């Protein structure tokens, strides 16, 4: 089986600060991979590099077996085949919910507006936001906004969905409704790369968990193995810190 997404030796530095130090990773069809690690370990940068919002310094990224990071290559076609959901939602505040959801489908995919509106409304319905299409984003809770952002990315029918700590900016009681949506997507067979701080969720949804530290994938494996019997000292320390934090909180 060839991977939907493949990363080979990807490096990225901001000046002297090396954020990614040689990432190798393959995401297969229908597979969900969770990226865990402390803030600043490179998870967000990795996702932004894959969606070509940042240039990588070295290495290759392949989408369906074709390189998308060749020098001088137009990033737009690859971006159109990927979906990215941000920690801070980044909805467009000047457009209502349905316009937010359909903008990518209409402008980037050339979907007829009526068709996009119908498909968008159906997605909103499915995510528990039926009838909210004409509201503006500032009328919605954080959890609702993030579900709109996921619908917006999904309507462009991406080959893979990149989720960048999509629950980190939410109030605790709103986290569940967003995770539920992602669980459904997993059940539908969506290929996903998920940067997350929600360990319980990662254990549930991910087929594979990668632990990042200082721009390297230090350990990777099935969720049971990573969370129950991590092999590396760094992983153990990270998980112990999280547990201590949970107890203190």
């Amino acid at each position, binding site marked *: 089986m060839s991977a939907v997404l493949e990363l080979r030796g990807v490096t990225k530095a901001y000046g002297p600060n090396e954020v990614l130090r040689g990432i190798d990773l393959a995401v297969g069809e229908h597979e969900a991979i969770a990226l865990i690690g402390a803030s600043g370990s490179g998870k967000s940068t990795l996702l932004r590099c894959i969606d070509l919002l940042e240039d990588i310094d070295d290495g290759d990224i392949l989408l369906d077996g074709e390189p998308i990071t060749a020098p001088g290559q137009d990033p*737009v076609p690859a*971006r159109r085949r990927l979906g990215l959901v941000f920690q801070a939602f980044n909805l467009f505040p000047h457009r209502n919910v349905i316009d937010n959801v359909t903008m990518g489908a209409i402008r980037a995919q050339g979907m007829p507006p009526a068709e996009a509106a119908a498909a968008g409304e159906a997605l909103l319905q499915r995510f528990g936001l039926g009838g909210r299409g004409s509201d503006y984003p500032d009328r919605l809770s954080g959890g609702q906004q993030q579900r709109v952002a996921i619908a917006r*990315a999904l309507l462009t029918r991406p080959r893979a969905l990149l989720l960048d700590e999509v629950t980190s900016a939410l109030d605790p009681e709103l986290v569940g409704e967003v995770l539920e949506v992602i669980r459904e997507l997993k059940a539908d067979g969506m290929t996903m790369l998920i940067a997350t701080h929600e360990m319980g969720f990662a254990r549930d949804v991910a087929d594979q968990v990668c632990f990042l530290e200082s721009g390297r994938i230090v350990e990777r494996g099935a969720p049971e193995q990573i969370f129950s019997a991590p092999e590396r000292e760094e992983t153990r320390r990270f998980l112990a810190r999280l547990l201590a934090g949970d107890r203190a909180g």
Partner: protein
Amino acid sequence: MTISAISTFIVVGGFVTWVLTSPGWPNVRNEFFSSSQFGASFGAVLSGFWLDVKMFLVVEVAVLIFGLLVALIRTVNTPILFPLRLLAVVYVDVMRGIPTILLIYIVGFAVPGLGLKGVPTNPVVLSGIALTMCYSAYVSEVFRAGLESIHPSQAGAALALGLTPVQALRFVVIPQAVRRVIPPLLNDFIALQKDVALVSIVGPQEAFRVAQIFAASQFNYTPLLAAAALYLCVTIPLTRIVDRLQARGRRERGGGGGVLALGPR
């Protein structure tokens, strides 16, 4: 309420009394407030003012387009645009540094003097171009402030959806930026609507010029007041609109009344 009424009465009443009892008031009244002169000149001044209206309407549209273009050149960070960006910086610096009246004078007299074929020599067109050059510089700075106030994550979200950079600007960044700068933009337009009077120095018979000719021939300044009244007719409504938009902006940002509360009201 009563405090504000009494204070208004004392201030306004005192000022009016002070002016009306001044030794020169009878002369000033005849020279500036003559109703017969007003009636005799008003029609001509009004038809002159029509030229002002046409000019500022056309110049405003040109300024919107050209100002946004200059702002985009200065904001969009593409290496290819570097020479243009340098040119835009020089343009804005120079245009904002020259008095408008001088620019109109230079363009109005120097360009026809060149004797080039295909270049307009009509003073109305030339002074309109001069006004556009000057106000586009100011308006480009207003647009630039608006564009820079939109967080880069908005463009990032648009690109992530697969929009091209031009689409991201057109559908996401520019609409939000323009909305934010409408009040300062209209402020510049109020200034422009008055500065149209400056074109009279290169010849066009607009309201101020017509009034000036009348005043000179009749030794009476009332026509100038007629012109002033006409300018007010277009600037005051626009000023009110700006105030209202700013108040609405403050409400939308949740800033309460928006006036510094320094004491009980």
